[in-house]
């Protein structure tokens, strides 16, 4: 008879590990199954981890976790072919406790985080793929893996199997995601001596910068690029929705090459050495794409539940928080000895009452609107660049005349009514 656990968590990323950690701390018998050689070996993100949600699980984690740099500066670039309009915020308060966010390398961080769950008593099995949930009387009662004698039972199975969650799809919780619901992101880790990074970004040893790049970085398609500082490397990456890539016939690696060779990006990377190349899908469907998250004997967390806020580049923090909420629901279900959907629905209620779903709801139309109206990235970014160039070039024209000329050129390009429509639509999308 195969062994039975209280909880089986599928996937040792931020969501799964957070859930395993919390349920193990509550004394439950927990099995955490990871398909990679070790946690983090298959996981990809741009690299920003927000402090708050992890701190709730592991107070003062920054004293022991393998972090790269605390971010003290966030820049935003509106990139054109040979120019950029930039703005940002740099604050030294982010460089001291309690910090705001950090850059991390997932291969190291996830291992450390999973070790915390193991220390709390969870069993971690690597290199094992869960192929399906075992369902009996429309209730999930365990998992089947790709190993010989590979069946195990549990009161609750928590699906943290990432974007494109095949397991929740098998259960009918969602359909195949559409190409406009996922982004394809490719990135490179570029090794660089820390002195060079500190000089180029005007940083001290334990300070980091992030740059989000819009416009020409994606050749005007819906998406963003990023450039983040690690201790002795840079993460540079770019992603667009899969649908944009298909429509514009873009190859992701071409796009990354294009970005790396952009005249305003190239000097920053000069002398660096490519160390790693990574690619991954990111769930960006937002509020409307969130699948059913609780069923009989099963919960869905993290990327598998599409919990990513693309506009604020939040994902791993939401994943951890959803894992924590799922753990609380499992612990309650155990107290009641009731693992039915109605019992586990306390997770759904907690999730929808939390900042996660509130934030996703706020932006529920944003991606859709920007996808449908490509002018924001394609036309307005170059327009902004032209306007700034004109305004700051001293050529004897009075400033008031310049303003008029700029307004005129914008309305001439898009038409006054359309400009007003565009502004109103954008405001509505993010208000």
């Amino acid at each position: 008879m195969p062994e039975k656990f209280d909880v089986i968590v599928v996937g040792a990323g931020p969501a799964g590990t957070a859930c395993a950690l919390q349920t193990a701390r509550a004394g439950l018998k927990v099995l955490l199954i990871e398909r990679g050689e070790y946690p983090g070996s298959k996981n990809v993100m741009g690299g920003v981890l927000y402090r708050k949600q992890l701190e709730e699980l592991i107070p003062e984690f920054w004293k022991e976790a393998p972090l790269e740099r605390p971010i003290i500066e966030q820049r935003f670039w509106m990139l054109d072919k040979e120019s950029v309009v930039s703005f940002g915020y740099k604050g030294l308060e982010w460089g001291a406790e309690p910090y705001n966010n950090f850059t991390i390398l997932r291969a190291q961080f996830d291992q450390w985080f999973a070790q915390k769950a193991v220390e709390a008593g969870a069993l971690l099995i690597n290199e094992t793929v869960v192929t399906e949930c075992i369902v009996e009387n429309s209730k999930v009662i365990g998992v089947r893996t790709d190993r010989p004698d590979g069946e195990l039972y549990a009161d609750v199975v928590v699906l943290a199997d990432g974007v494109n969650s095949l397991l929740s799809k098998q259960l009918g919780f969602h359909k195949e995601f559409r190409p406009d619901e996922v982004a394809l992101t490719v990135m490179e880790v570029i090794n660089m001596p820390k002195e060079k990074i500190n000089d180029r970004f005007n940083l001290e040893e334990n300070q980091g910068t992030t740059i989000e790049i819009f416009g020409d970085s994606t050749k005007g398609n819906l998406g963003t690029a990023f450039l983040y500082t690690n201790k002795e490397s840079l993460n540079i990456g770019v992603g667009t929705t899969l649908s944009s890539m298909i429509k514009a016939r873009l190859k992701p690696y071409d796009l990354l090459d294009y970005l790396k060779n952009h005249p305003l990006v190239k000097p920053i990377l000069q002398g660096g050495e490519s160390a790693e190349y990574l690619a991954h899908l990111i769930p960006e469907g937002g509020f409307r794409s969130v699948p059913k998250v609780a069923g009989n004997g099963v919960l869905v967390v993290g990327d598998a539940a599409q919990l990513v806020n693309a506009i604020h580049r939040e994902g791993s923090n939401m994943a951890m928080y959803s894992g924590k909420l799922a753990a609380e629901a499992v612990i309650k279900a155990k107290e009641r000895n009731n693992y039915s959907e109605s019992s586990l629905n306390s997770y759904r209620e907690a999730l929808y009452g939390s900042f996660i779903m509130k934030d996703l709801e706020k932006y529920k139309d944003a991606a859709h609107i920007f996808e449908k109206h490509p002018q924001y990235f394609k036309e307005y970014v170059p327009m902004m660049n032209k306007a700034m160039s004109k305004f700051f070039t001293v050529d004897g024209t009075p400033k008031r005349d310049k303003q008029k000329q700029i307004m005129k050129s914008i309305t001439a390009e898009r038409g006054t009514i359309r400009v007003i429509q565009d502004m109103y639509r954008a405001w509505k999308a993010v208000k």
Partner: protein
Amino acid sequence: MHIVVCVKQVPDTKIIKINPKTNTLDRRSAPAILNPYDAHAVQEAVKIIEKTGGTISVLSMGPPQATAVIKKSIEIGADRGYLISDRAFAGADTLATSYALSKALERIGKDLPVDMVICGKHAIDGDTGQVGPGIARRMDIPPVTNVIEVTEVNEQEKTVLIKRKSTNGNELIQADLPCLLTVEKEINNIEYSPLPNMIKAVRYEPVIWTVADLENVECTQLGLKGSPTIVGKMFTPPKPEGGKRLEGSSDEQVKQLMGILMEKKELLTLQSSK
């Protein structure tokens, strides 16, 4: 049947970097893994025990983190694991290592007599292949190296039929039990471990012995003290320069080649003398 498999934790030499100044391995640059030949040794033990029934123990020497390779062996199918770990063992060459392991084998044999010892052909970080035969010599049992097949184990007669690779072909050998085998990679394929083994491995706590746990140990034969090997010099062999590429039609290429051969006759004599 009780089989003991000796395993070693090694840096993955496929990806390890060499410190250009000291010419030593930069061990931080590569993950520590179970020596691949040893994995085949454990797998072979599993195959034998499937037929005969019995127990598989694994034995390793190394720092405490070497328990990882014992756990890996449990995944493959071993039943128990022993690690001898002590400052006194540190810096051992193959002579001191085989002495320490044979003492640990003695101790294991006291609880359950050992019928067979299996080792990998060699460790990928040292490539000497001396520890296995060294253990056999100290235990006074026959060593059979370069094994590519364990054809038959006869428990009644206490014999084993073995196919071993030699320079002139394969040899079929009958050896008395107990004996020691060192195995080649082609002896088997590593099976995908069953899930219960994976869970067992995660939970398993290997037995860790220090020098004090072993009996009749001559401390002068351990570790650096017991190691007569002196490393004179270490160097990275220069990368071979690319060969010369002949271009043109086949006739032209043959002509060019003949020209080179006629010019450098020593190339021909070197080949034939081999």
